[in-house]
């Protein structure tokens, strides 16, 4: 069965059945839960799943553990918000423009850091993030309304502003479906083979003729694009931005954790991780956070340690392992 999974990774067959069904059911949940609070939770689940899948592109499939994504998120949030607030540009234009700016930033970071390996790469991405955050924190960057600004609520589709939660649900869900499709397209293509080869042995991939720097730059750019788009959506959804909120390591660590717990380098892992952990996070913030503010992070830490020890492949790894045992029990 394990061997079967390896073969399927390179084809479209792998996307069929359980995961598609899972996504369809996920897409129906806003119709089942009609209370605004539950729908708010669903928006956050879809958005964080989207961000988690985007991060998984470079860090899960590419094996490059990036901490620069907090910067891409912030760049996307500011681009969309500034264009909307100061220049009356529709967020539907601002989102892709923010994504493109995210790609530009990722290219600069990539050129500076791609020769580094393992911990040095991780630390250098964190340093780049800090530099960009500082830039936004201390330099006004031509913003008329100030860096901490409320985004005016002018309800309308073109303004990506709604009175009800349901449109946010489905826009966030649509973003999730798009990034999942792109991730699947990437992994099933030549590009996916290159990524897996680079992750296993970069020097061997180079000597086989794989253009390693180009592959890394492309996947980093792709991941940054989606993260920046997520930042733009977040800004419009929350309705307020300031550097510490959108250039937030805490927020980034959340979707990184969802990918790790769900299962890195898998399509379903980040989605599953978000589905389980976003509600848990909201519960911890709402019911425990007030009294014991740091308890949430403590529980997060426990979840991470338990996952690494019991299921290094995350929930998806656990599910595969259990289903393999069950199948063996049924047929042998």
């Amino acid at each position, binding site marked *: 069965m394990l061997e079967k999974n390896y*073969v399927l990774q390179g084809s479209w067959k792998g996307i069929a059945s359980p995961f598609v069904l899972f996504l369809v059911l996920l897409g129906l949940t806003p119709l089942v839960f009609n209370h605004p609070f539950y729908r708010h939770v669903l928006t956050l689940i879809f958005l964080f799943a989207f961000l988690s899948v985007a991060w998984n592109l470079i860090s899960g499939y590419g094996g490059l553990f990036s901490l620069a994504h907090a910067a891409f998120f912030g760049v996307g949030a500011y681009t969309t918000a500034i264009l909307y607030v100061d220049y009356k540009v529709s967020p539907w234009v601002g989102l892709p423009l923010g994504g493109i700016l995210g790609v530009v930033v990722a290219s600069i970071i990539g050129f500076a850091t791609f020769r580094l390996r393992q911990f040095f790469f991780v630390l250098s991405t964190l340093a780049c993030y800090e530099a960009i955050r500082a830039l936004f924190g201390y330099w006004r960057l031509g913003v008329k309304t100030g860096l901490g600004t409320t985004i005016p609520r002018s309800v309308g589709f073109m303004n990506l502003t709604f009175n009800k939660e349901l449109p946010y649900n489905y826009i966030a869900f649509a973003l999730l479906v798009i990034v999942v499709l792109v991730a699947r397209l990437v992994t099933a293509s030549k590009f996916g*083979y*290159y990524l897996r*080869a680079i992750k296993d042995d970069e*020097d*061997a*991939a180079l*000597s086989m*003729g*794989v253009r390693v720097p180009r592959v890394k730059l492309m996947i980093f750019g792709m991941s940054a694009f989606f993260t920046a788009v997520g930042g733009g959506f977040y800004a419009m959804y929350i309705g307020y931005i300031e550097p510490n909120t959108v250039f937030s390591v805490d927020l980034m660590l959340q979707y990184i954790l969802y990918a790790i717990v769900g299962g890195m380098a898998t399509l379903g892992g980040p989605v599953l991780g978000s589905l389980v952990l976003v509600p848990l996070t909201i519960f911890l913030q709402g019911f425990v956070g007030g009294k014991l503010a740091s308890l949430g992070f403590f529980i997060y830490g426990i979840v991470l340690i338990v996952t690494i020890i019991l299921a290094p492949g995350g929930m998806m790894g656990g599910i595969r392992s259990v289903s393999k045992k069950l199948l063996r029990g049924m047929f042998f």
Partner: protein
Amino acid sequence: MNSQNDSILDVQGIIKDFGGLRAINHVSLQIREGEVRGLIGPNASGKTTLINLISGMYKVDDGHIYLNGKRIDGLEPDQIASRGVMRTFQISRIFRNMTVLENVMVPALAQGQSLFEARRHAEELLDFALLTRLKDEPARSLSGGQAMLLQIVRGFVHQDLRLYLMDEPFAGVHDVIKGVILKTIKTMNEERKITFLIVSHEMTTISSVCHHVTVLDKGEVLSQGTMEEVANDPAVIDSYLGG
């Protein structure tokens, strides 16, 4: 300066230093197209460093390397690979989390083959190297010898392969697999006219497959010629026996 006309590989006076240590000292080497050249020498004589320099993993500090008359020193390893130079590593560096088949597909895809073509070529090669029954196994499950064989087979999927650099392909490999590797080298040399530069400590094996041998010692070329010629060279005997 340019390369000699009949040389596929022309190494001209290259130098490589690591800090204060000169690993390669003015090494010159010419290999004719279609030749199988052995590269031998005591431990730390610079054999692997030379392979790393030719394949672009290391950059030369001085001197030039020509492939078919065109300079390749200064190019990146992937650019050198695209010019028809493949290599193996002393310790097998296969893609452990990919299947055996996928391992062979990677260089084929990198050279512009479609997924379908790459798969077909990879399957043909695995069949030739008697690895078909393992094609869907994760590469990490292979034995040391099988991993070495896979590493070698992987390079042959390059359709324009001209020069194959092999670093200790027979080390620690079972005799049966060694036989398959030797047969593969001979067949590819005869049928596809691929040129080989093979680093090895195994004199008997080297003498059975190589037309000529180059001996390195302390980063310098000590002797060159047929196996018989270098085996009778007093400098080589002195170097190996530590005189």
